């Protein structure tokens, strides 16, 4: 009897132990950039160190630290803690977890600590970057880069920041993306490209007249845009691999925007008696399928990442409004009901959100609509006109043009409407921004 009772007790204990939760372990730090309540974390940097047995840091070390700080400064969910705010300083004996006094970062309310170690070599340095959670010491990301020199420093900084953003949020395309936009110089407007951080600013078109409405192919190789001369509108495509521009007269009189579909074909809004939206053939000289046909003006196509949905502007119900077409069923649904002038839509890669410009009594403003929940929110508040919003490839950032400072410039915000940040585009009005992935 006693034996049976003991056996039962043992079994119960075993069951309790088996069912007990594992020893408490802090959840890995992650940031939901797509959720409604985006959190903000504090990040600090230890002093860059030479990796033993290197005697000294290479000259690139300081520049790399600056580049990473500049890059991460674009992420609204990160607060970069100044070195001076870390009690006891940021100099550590080494770059791995056991070398770092996490307590001094914890006291300064730091969530993430980044270390960099350099091993100079004859053909460039070996660079080791690590990011730890200050509270648990968990390694969030560790990356090593070989043969790092001054020439490749920006690329390495972008690569690291891309991996870091991906580790935190699941998406890192922002630091692998670039922007195209139209820039005015006198009476001419040409197409320029740059990274979203304002680096590698480059003029790609030299056609005179007005070039506008740029759109990147999904792989980032091709950049299509419209060119308006005194006599006609033409379609132009810049091949970033060969640095050549192809220009052709489209079988229509006016071009009203374009976008690449995920399969690489180009959809163009153009007038063939009426302004509709068409698929072009692969050689871009003939019209393929008609995507939207209506007696009204239909312009500004924008596709989601899978090509399931296309947002566009149509004035079929009396004034310009945003519509979304389901490419499988052919169903076209109106998205905007407020305001009498909603234009320039850009659909998020996941097809859930559409951003657009609405004309209000105070000027154009950027709005965002959840097309599943049919909920709308104002993202920008001027002053001046905020126009032509475009989603980044990760669906988190939104770039738009605004004359809030007097002249039209580009600004970066997020789907949550974070404080717009001006982008450096050089002289001349900058309009029509379009995000794409770097093809390199």
């Amino acid at each position, binding site marked *: 009897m006693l034996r049976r009772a003991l056996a039962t007790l043992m079994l119960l204990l075993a069951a309790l132990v088996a069912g007990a939760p594992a020893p408490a372990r802090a959840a890995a730090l992650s940031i939901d950039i797509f959720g409604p309540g985006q959190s903000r974390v504090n990040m600090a940097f230890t002093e860059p160190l030479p990796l033993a047995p290197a005697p000294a840091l290479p000259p690139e070390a300081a520049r790399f630290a600056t580049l990473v700080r500049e890059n991460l400064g674009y992420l609204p969910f990160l607060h970069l803690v100044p070195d001076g705010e870390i009690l006891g300083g940021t100099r550590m004996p080494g770059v791995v977890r056991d070398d770092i006094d996490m307590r001094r970062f914890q006291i300064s309310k730091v969530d993430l600590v980044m270390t960099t170690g350099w091993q100079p070599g004859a053909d460039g340095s070996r660079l080791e970057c690590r990011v730890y959670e200050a509270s648990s010491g968990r390694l969030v990301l560790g990356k090593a880069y070989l043969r790092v020199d001054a020439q490749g420093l920006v690329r390495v900084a972008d690569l690291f920041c891309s991996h870091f953003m991906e580790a935190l949020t699941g998406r890192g395309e922002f630091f692998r993306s670039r922007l195209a936009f139209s820039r005015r110089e006198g009476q001419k407007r040409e197409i320029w490209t740059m990274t979203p951080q304002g680096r590698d600013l480059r003029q790609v078109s030299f056609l005179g007249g*007005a070039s506008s409405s740029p759109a990147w192919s999904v792989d980032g190789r091709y950049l299509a845009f419209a060119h308006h001369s005194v006599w006609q509108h033409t379609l132009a495509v810049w091949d970033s691999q060969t640095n050549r521009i192809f220009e052709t007269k489209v079988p229509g*009189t006016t071009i009203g925007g374009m976008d690449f579909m995920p399969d690489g074909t*180009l959809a163009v809004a153009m007038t063939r008696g009426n302004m509709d939206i068409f698929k072009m053939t692969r050689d871009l000289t003939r019209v393929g399928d008609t995507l939207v046909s209506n007696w009204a003006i239909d312009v500004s196509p924008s596709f989601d990442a899978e090509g399931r949905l296309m947002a566009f*502007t149509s004035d079929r119900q009396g004034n310009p409004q945003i519509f979304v077409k389901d490419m499988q069923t052919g169903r076209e649904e109106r998205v905007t009901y407020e305001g009498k002038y909603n234009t320039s839509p850009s659909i998020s890669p996941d097809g859930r959100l559409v951003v657009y410009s609405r004309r209000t009594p105070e000027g154009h403003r950027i709005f965002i609509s959840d097309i599943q929940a049919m909920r709308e929110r104002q993202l920008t508040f001027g002053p001046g006109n905020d126009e*032509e919003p475009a989603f980044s490839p990760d669906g988190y950032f939104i770039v738009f043009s605004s004359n809030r400072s007097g002249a039209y410039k580009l600004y970066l915000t997020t789907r949550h409407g974070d404080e717009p940040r001006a982008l450096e585009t050089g002289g001349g009005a900058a*309009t029509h921004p379009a995000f794409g992935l770097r093809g390199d």
Partner: protein
Amino acid sequence: MRTRFLVGMAVILAMMLAVSGCAKTQKDAAEQPLSFSTPEPQAGEPAMVDSAALDAEAQKAFDALTVNKIYFDFDKFDLKDESKEVLKAKAEILKKYGDWKMLVEGHCDERGTEEYNLALGERRARAAYEYLVVLGVPSSRLKIVSFGEEKPAVEGSGEAAWAKNRRDEFKVFK
């Protein structure tokens, strides 16, 4: 029975081949890069008529074609009565000067956004073009182009400037 079985198998096999063929075609299309070569250079741009070289009567006709513009309401492209009168006068001149052609430029004010304004400018130019064709001007002697808000006639903001910028302009070429 055996023949039926073989025919059935052949049909199934053919369907499988067709399905795999379709899948491959789709994949190939997705991987295929854009294919284009620079087209042959097109004929040069048409020559504008040099008004200084015209005699007094022709110069007057030239001015009547190019100086008189027509105007539109905001976000509208329908012709007003006074615009129709202006176009009737232009049609008569074009009938008289048979070697002249006319470019109709559609323009908008700055308040809209560019791509929609380009479409609206095209509609404004096309409205004039179609009215001129109805009045008997051959379509081969007319050409339209839209500038949207790219080339305002008057700089500045306010209804006085905007009203002057929502317009069709006319150029004469041969």
